[in-house]
C-alpha cells in the first residue's frame, strides 16, 4: 500500500528525514512513535503529500508521488487523514463537514452523501450531533467527527497524526475505541501516537524514529519486550515509566 525508498527531506538546511525506508502492506496497522522532533509527523505527511520529499521515492497504492498534481490528487482521494488539532471546518455543521468532499470531489449526490455521513456518524457514536457546529462539541467528539469525515471518502488507507495528543485524558478512550474498531474491520492504518496501549493491542508493527531516521521496526511484542537500541529503551522508559 505504501512504499518509501530512501526518502530524505530538509526544512531549509535542517534535515528532518534521512534515508527512510518503509513498507506498509494492505490491511497492516503501523504505529509510528519516537521523541518529539524525530520526524514522525513529517513522515506521514509525505504519504498524502502535505509535505514534499526531496530525494527518494514515495509510492502509495501504486502511484508514485511527484510534482504532477494529478498523481497527488489521485493519492489524496484514496487516503484519509486525521490531525492532532481536528481541523474541522468551523463555519460548517458536522453534517456539512462530512458531505463536503464526497459531493465536491467525488461528485456523489447530496442525498447519498448525507446517508453515508449519517452511517459513519453512527459508527463513531455521535449521530445526534449532525446539525451542530464543531465549536459546540467536546474535543473527543470533534476528533470522532474528523475520523468520520475522512471515512466518508471511503479511503483505502487512514493516516492518524497524533490523534489524541490534544485531548483531555477522559476523552482519549472514546477516540481510541473508534480507532480500535476501525482496525478490527481491516483498515490499513498508519498512526503516529504516544499511546503505547493502543500500539500493543492494535499494531502489526511499531516503527521507532529518532533524529529523522527509522531506528527500529518490529512487532509490538518484540519492540516492547526487548527493544534493541538504547534510544528505544530510553524512550520507552520515559513514556511507560509513570
Amino acid at each position, binding site marked *: 500500500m505504501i512504499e518509501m525508498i530512501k526518502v530524505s527531506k530538509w526544512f531549509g538546511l535542517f534535515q528532518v528525514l534521512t534515508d527512510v525506508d518503509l513498507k506498509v502492506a494492505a490491511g497492516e496497522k503501523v504505529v509510528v512513535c519516537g521523541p518529539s522532533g524525530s520526524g514522525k509527523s513529517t513522515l506521514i505527511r509525505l504519504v498524502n503529500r502535505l509535505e514534499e520529499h526531496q530525494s527518494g521515492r514515495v509510492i502509495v497504492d501504486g502511484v508514485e508521488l511527484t510534482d504532477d498534481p494529478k498523481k497527488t490528487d489521485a493519492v489524496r482521494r484514496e487516503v484519509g*487523514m486525521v490531525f492532532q*488539532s481536528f481541523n*474541522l471546518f468551523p*463555519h460548517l455543521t458536522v453534517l456539512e463537514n462530512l458531505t463536503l468532499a464526497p459531493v465536491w470531489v467525488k461528485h456523489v449526490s447530496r442525498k447519498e452523501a448525507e446517508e453515508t455521513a449519517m452511517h459513519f456518524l453512527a459508527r463513531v457514536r455521535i449521530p445526534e450531533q449532525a446539525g451542530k*457546529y464543531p465549536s459546540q462539541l467536546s474535543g473527543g467528539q470533534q476528533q470522532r467527527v474528523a475520523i468520520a*469525515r475522512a471515512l466518508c471518502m471511503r479511503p483505502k488507507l487512514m493516516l492518524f497524526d497524533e490523534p489524541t495528543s490534544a485531548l483531555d485524558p477522559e476523552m482519549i478512550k472514546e477516540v481510541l475505541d473508534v480507532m480500535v474498531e476501525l482496525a478490527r474491520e481491516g483498515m490499513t492504518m498508519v498512526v503516529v501516537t504516544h499511546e503505547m496501549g493502543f500500539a500493543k493491542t492494535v499494531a502489526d508493527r511499531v516503527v521507532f524514529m529518532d533524529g529523522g531516521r527509522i531506528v527500529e521496526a518490529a512487532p509490538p511484542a518484540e519492540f516492547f519486550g526487548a527493544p534493541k537500541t538504547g534510544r528505544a529503551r530510553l524512550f520507552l522508559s520515559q513514556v511507560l515509566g509513570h
Partner: protein
Amino acid sequence: MKFAIQWIRENLFAGWVSSAFTLLLIFVLWKTLPPFIDWAFLDAVWKPDSKACRAGEGACWGFIAEKHRFILFGTYPYDLHWRPAVATVLLIGLWIFSAIRLFWKWWLTLVWLSGLTTIGILMWGGILGLPYVENERWGGLILTLLLTTFGLAIAFPLSILLALGRRSDMPVIRGLSVGYIELIRGVPLISLLFMASVMLPLFLPSGVTIDKLLRAQIAMILFAAAYLAEVVRGGLQAIPRGQYDAAHALALPYWRRTYLIILPQALRISVPPLMNTFIAFFKDTSLVLIIGLFDLLSTIKISLNEPAWTGFGIEAYVFASLVYFVFCYAMSRYSRGLEHQR
C-alpha cells in the same frame, strides 16, 4: 429611583478620577449644548429667506429648504426630479432588501438586475415616453449612491482575486497582483481620477470616447480594489494552516477549497475592516467633484456660490454630514450585526 442612584454612583462617581471626568464632562456640555440648541433650533430661521437669515442669530435652515432639490438632484432637469427621486428610493430599497439574510439566494441577482435596469431607464429615459437625460446632468445623492454601488459591486470581487493572486504560488500572478496593489495604493485617488479624466482620452484611439462618469467609475473601482485586496489578504492570513491541510487531505481542488473553505472564513474575519473600507469609499465618492461631476457634496458647494446664499456653509455642511452619517451609521450597524451571526 434607588436603582438609578446606584447606577450613577457605580458608573459616574466610582473613585475620584471617575468623578473628576464626570464633572468635567458636565461642565463642557453645560458650556456648549445650550448655545448649540439656541443656534440650531430656537434662533434658527426656517423660511427660505436669505435676508431674514442674515438678520437672525441662529442657523439658516431656509437655505436647505430653498436648495434641497438642487442638493439632492444636481443639474438634473427640474421638472423631471421625480425620476432620480424614485431611483434613489429604489436603490436604497435594493440595499436594504439585500441586507436580509433570508434573501441571499440566487434570485437576488435577478432582483438586482431588474432593479438596476429600472434605475437606468428612470435616469436616462429615452423610452416609454420619458425624455432622454444625458448622464452629464446626473447629480446629487443618486450619483453618490450609484458610484458607491457599482464601485463596490465590481471592486470587491476584483479585490478577492487580487488578494488570492498575491498569495499565489505562481510568480507571474503574484508579481502582477503585488505590482497592481502597490502601484494603486501608492497614488492618491485624486490623481487617479485626474488621470482617468484627462490622460486616458489621450491614449485612446481617435474617435473612441469613454463617458466621463464611466471613467470616474473605473478609476474608483481600480482604487477601491487595491485597498480591499489588502483587507481580504489580512483575513486570508488569519486562516490556520490546519484548514488548508484538511482541505488538501480531502483532495479539494484549488477553487473549491478557496470558495468552500477559505473565503467564507476569511471574509467573516474581515467584516470590520471591510466595512471600514466600504464606508471610506462611500465618502471618497465626493472626490469626483474635481473632474466636474456633481455628487451630493459638490451640489452643496455649488449652492453656496449663489450670492444670496454665500456664507451659510455651516448649515450646508451640517446637512451633508447628516445625510452621510445616516448611510454610514446604517452600514456600521449592519456590519456589527453580521459579525454576531453564523
